[in-house]
């Protein structure tokens, strides 16, 4: 089962997102900020990371930059989910494999994940 790491400070969103992904057949580990997600990524080597932008301690962009700079993590696909900072994500090519705008749309997200994971 593919493991997905979620970086999301808003607990309600993190919870709903985790349930949605588990229902779709993925294993999920979440962190309340980018720094926690980076730790998780190092420990668990997930197949994919879904991150919010505005979070304490480390933003989604900073998380992506840290992962891209780390030889062991640089190839993990990252999806940025953001309401307001989607444009910042799009303006940083090479950082995110997909940028989706909040609020979450289940179908689009599941499609985007499927497209990024090896079949």
């Amino acid at each position, binding site marked *: 089962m593919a493991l997905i790491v979620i970086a999301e*400070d*808003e*607990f309600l969103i*993190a919870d709903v997102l985790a349930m949605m992904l588990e229902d779709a057949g993925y294993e999920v580990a979440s962190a*309340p900020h980018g720094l926690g997600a980076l730790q998780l990524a190092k420990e668990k080597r997930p197949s994919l990371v879904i991150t919010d932008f505005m979070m*304490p*301690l480390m933003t989604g962009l900073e998380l992506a930059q840290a992962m891209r700079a780390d030889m062991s993590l640089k190839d993990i696909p990252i999806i940025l989910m953001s*309401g307001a*900072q989607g444009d910042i994500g799009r303006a940083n090519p090479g950082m995110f494999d997909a940028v989706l705008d909040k609020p979450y749309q289940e179908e689009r997200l599941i499609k985007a994940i499927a497209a990024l994971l090896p079949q």
Partner: protein
Amino acid sequence: MTHSLPRLTTGIPGLDPILGGGLVEGASYIVQGQPGAGKTILSNQVAFANVSTGRKVLYVTLLAETHERLFQALGTLSFFDRTKLGSGITYVSVFQILRDQGLSAVVSLIRKEISRQGASLLVFDGLLNARDRADTDLDAKTFVAEIQSQAAFVGCTVLFLASTRAADDSPEHTMVDGVIELHDELSGVRSVRRLQVKKSRGAPALGGFHQFEIGSDGVSVFPRLEAALGRPSTENKPSSSPVPSGVQGLDAVIGGGLTTSSVTLVFGPSGCGKTSLGLSFLNCSTAQEPGLHFGFYETPARLLLKARDIGLELDPLLASGALEMIWTPMTENLLDKLGHNLIDAVKARGVKRLVIDGLGGFERAAVHPPRLVEFFASLSNELRALDVTTIATWELRDLFGPTVSAPGSEVSSLLDNLVMLRQVEVNSRYKKTLSVLKMRDSAFEPVIHEVSIGNNGLRVEVPLQPVTGAATGVAKPLESTASDSVKA
């Protein structure tokens, strides 16, 4: 020598003066109120006002609506700027950290975030949730104390948002520098929003309740006029030269004209010429002495028609900017908003001739009528200080009748001059009359005069034929006086 503390503007119209000049930099405040009272809008407005001047803001939430939903709601308000999200202002939720690691982890995270963001303002939304996580009151106080001391250390101002509970004697109140409470209360069938600064350390705040409203520009506060203008904003320099009243024949009766920067109350029942007198007065407006009609009854279009009907052409004055007409429908108004709007309009154009038609519009807006005396005192003092000559109208309820009551005796005594307009029945004919009852610092003819309305506005004609009871509107020929007074 006293010194004043550096301030952070709230960016909320009217709030800085209430706080004695704004928020004290590096100080912490509790903003509290029932859900729906306006805490979130107020704090976001303060946040974006400071973001717009280049400051950084950290907005921390606990268990609340999602940030995206918050942004959707804020998106309807003019101060909200989506492009600043994530750069000028950062919204983070610390609920998971609070739940999993406790209050001290939250304090540590906030400390790191303040310095990471270089924040000069921290908004912490969810003080009650933090208190729920605390085991004792001391823990809750310690949490507040730690956050505020961390923030103060780097000069960051803090707003703690808290929903009020019944019988709230929050231990945190003793810790913070200020407490701002928001109320949304029913008064009769209407609701009124009011703000109160309950605590203000190191700065004299304007006490008591101040009305506010929430519109598409966010929160606007209207400092209670008598508190904000306890003393007029400038010094009045009375001048001795009288101001022409614009009413033909009146200046001769009142010693040459109205005293400069005086307030004249013109009262009488409906239809006796109060509005016409006001329009005649404003007909003398010039670019040097601009006029303002601040009314509650007729719209500007109707006033212009009325003026034309009595031979006054006000359109050119309006077009040239010598005259302005502000109409406020007499619906659900806020007393202090009316007062501030009036003073702002006077200051904006340097108005010298003002007609308030009429004071009843203020009276109806008063949620707490006993304060009208202080309200009118501060308003009239300010108008005098701004060198405005004012005519205010007051409608008497009874068209005819033995009682002639001036609007609240205390209010009348605040005003300089009293002029009564009445219709008087004499020998089955109605005659419009004008009586001068009081002229402060000026001699006047104590004679009831007939007035006419026509050609060139209101005109004071000849003295009314000798009768008694004219002031009540029901006159009697002189010869019957003796027997009547015996009966009485």
